[in-house]
């Protein structure tokens, strides 16, 4: 009986049949034994629908791959068939049985709230935004124009903006090579100023290379412009501070408050207010010039000489007392 069953099985396997060939074989084997499906179900304790599904090849109706295979093996063995062979054929016919059981654990729902990464990103964005905003705002506060605008009442005297600065700058080199220029010559130059017409600015650029003797001739164009570029102190002061070269200048009251403390660029002027007891300190005596009522005072000292606490008294300046005071320490510096 056993051998005949297996022979029948092999015959069935050889002939081309439909998908549920294995199920049909099982059914044939069961019918040969003479057992009904409900009796089989009662014997194996496998539910009737599952046995029917196996025989009809409806694998989707079986509960899970592991159970389906187990049922098929149990059924085959109870009919005296080779369980391993039947299981192998079952696998071959039903591809989905070979698929591994998917194991996905139920994951807890993530707690609500912004994730940490997003929070950090937001923080970084805020910081960058704040910095950019601060940079833009602080950048708009423009640095005040270092050159003071020409006062309105003097605007008429300035025919063109271009020639005005040129002579002033030309004046700077003029005095630089003549630190020891005698006082009378300077006064003579000032005296000659009014009648002279301003020469073209090109000439002034060569002045620096000329010997001191020719400087006198070259200076007039520089000095010719004071009325335009050096306004008399508007607030009643008689003294005007003028830089012929870059010089750090400090003007302060003897009692303490500092009125001016910065580097005056070559050609820049600063009207000294009419207050008594003002003191001047300059880091470059040769590049600092004092004008009293529009008249240049004698030079304060040589190029790069530091002069401290010079009293800004109009009469003393005009008399050249400050220059004389400078003459005393000069020999000390070879």
């Amino acid at each position, binding site marked *: 009986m056993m051998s005949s069953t297996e022979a029948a099985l092999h015959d069935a396997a050889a002939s081309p049949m439909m998908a549920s060939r294995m199920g049909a074989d099982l059914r044939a084997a069961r019918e040969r034994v003479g057992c009904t499906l409900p009796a089989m179900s009662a014997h194996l304790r496998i539910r009737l629908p599952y046995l029917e599904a196996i025989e009809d090849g409806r694998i989707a109706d079986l509960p899970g791959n592991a159970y389906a295979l187990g*049922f098929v093996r149990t059924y085959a063995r109870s009919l005296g068939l080779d369980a391993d062979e039947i299981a192998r054929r079952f696998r071959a016919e039903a591809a989905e049985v070979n698929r591994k059981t998917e194991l996905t654990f139920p994951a807890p729902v993530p707690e609500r709230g912004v994730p940490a990464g997003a929070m950090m990103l937001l923080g970084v964005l805020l910081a960058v935004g704040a910095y950019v905003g601060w940079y833009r705002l602080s950048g708009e506060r423009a640095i005040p124009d270092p050159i003071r605008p020409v006062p309105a009442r003097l605007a008429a005297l300035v025919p063109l903006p271009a020639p005005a600065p040129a002579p002033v700058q030309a004046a700077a080199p003029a005095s630089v090579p003549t630190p020891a220029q005698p006082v009378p010559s300077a006064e003579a130059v000032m005296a000659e100023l009014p009648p002279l017409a301003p020469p073209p600015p090109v000439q002034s650029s060569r002045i620096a290379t000329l010997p001191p003797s020719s400087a006198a001739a070259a200076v007039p164009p520089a000095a010719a412009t004071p009325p335009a570029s050096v306004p008399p102190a508007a607030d009643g002061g008689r003294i005007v501070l003028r830089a012929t070269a870059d010089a750090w200048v400090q003007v302060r009251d003897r009692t303490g408050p500092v009125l001016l403390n910065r580097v005056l660029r070559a050609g820049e002027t600063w009207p000294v207010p009419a207050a008594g007891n003002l003191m001047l300190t300059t880091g470059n005596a040769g590049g600092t010039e004092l004008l009293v009522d529009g008249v240049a005072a004698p030079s304060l000292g040589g190029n790069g000489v530091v002069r401290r606490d010079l009293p800004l008294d109009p009469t003393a300046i005009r008399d050249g007392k400050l220059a004389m005071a400078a003459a005393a320490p000069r020999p000390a510096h070879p």
Partner: protein
Amino acid sequence: MFSRLLGFMSADMAIDLGTANTLVYVKGRGIVLDEPSVVAIADVRGKKQVLAVGEEAKLMLGRTPGNIQAIRPLRDGVIADFEVAEEMIKHFIRKVHNRRGFASPLIIVCVPSGSTAVERRAIQESAESAGARKVLLIEEPMAAAIGAGLPVTEPSGSMVVDIGGGTTEVAVISLGGIVYSRSVRVGGDKMDEAIISYIRRNHNLLIGESSAERIKMDIGAASTPYEGDEGPYREVKGRDLMNGVPREIVVSQRAISESLAEPVSAIVEAVKVALENTPPELAADIVDKGIVLTGGGALLNRLDQVLRDATGLPVVVAEDALQCVALGTGRALEEMKRLRNVLTSMY
């Protein structure tokens, strides 16, 4: 990150440290080692040295002279001899981990669900001192269910009965966790002992453990054959207790199945108790799908039929019943990120 880098360089492994057999699954390679959990130790001038491990040592079991001991370091599913167990694990790791000394592997070891914290710690520590980078534990019934291909993570009850060498684990699993589990210290060893005592009692013949195991695997059955049928016969050799000479007798399947009645009824009892303690919804699922048997004990003839008759439920034997636990532990290793819920550590 660093641990992942080490994982590339070392062969991470899953170990089914069983009472009877130890199986080692190496990541990406499958089961590479299946050997008996036996260690032979030689006493050389007062110093103990490992002589053989595995198959070789099993041949020595019960056949050793005074200076050699063949030891089974695991009893009832847990470590009985700590040092020997450590030596055995070390040997198996060396055998499969050929890039020795480069990077130590991550090891997943399975433990019986009924083991105590002390026993688990002993297993973890012996694996650690055998050279593991990290040791994770997995409960045996869970590993068996995963290895048998049961849908353990679905909201549907699955019942698995893993009959190992030392213990029988019965567990109801749903949603990736063990709902109920019961571990009885009855397994293949107890069956062997039952066969030995039966033959001694009825035939006055003393046989060894290995002989008993061989008979069990050949003709052992959970229930007696049909009426009037003695079933197949086997010769068994041993020492006669009456006159002390070696003798051979023939035993029938009916005799062996009678001798196995006690351990089998203990297993049936454990399954029944587990069913009694199963919540009704899960019990309904089990009525539909039935019980899955795994482990070497599941291969005992007609055990599924005995359980079917006792419980009235469909009982099926898993494919590769002997390797289910190792395959399940290996799958936990392969899909560690997804299955990390089933892994534990004693630290």
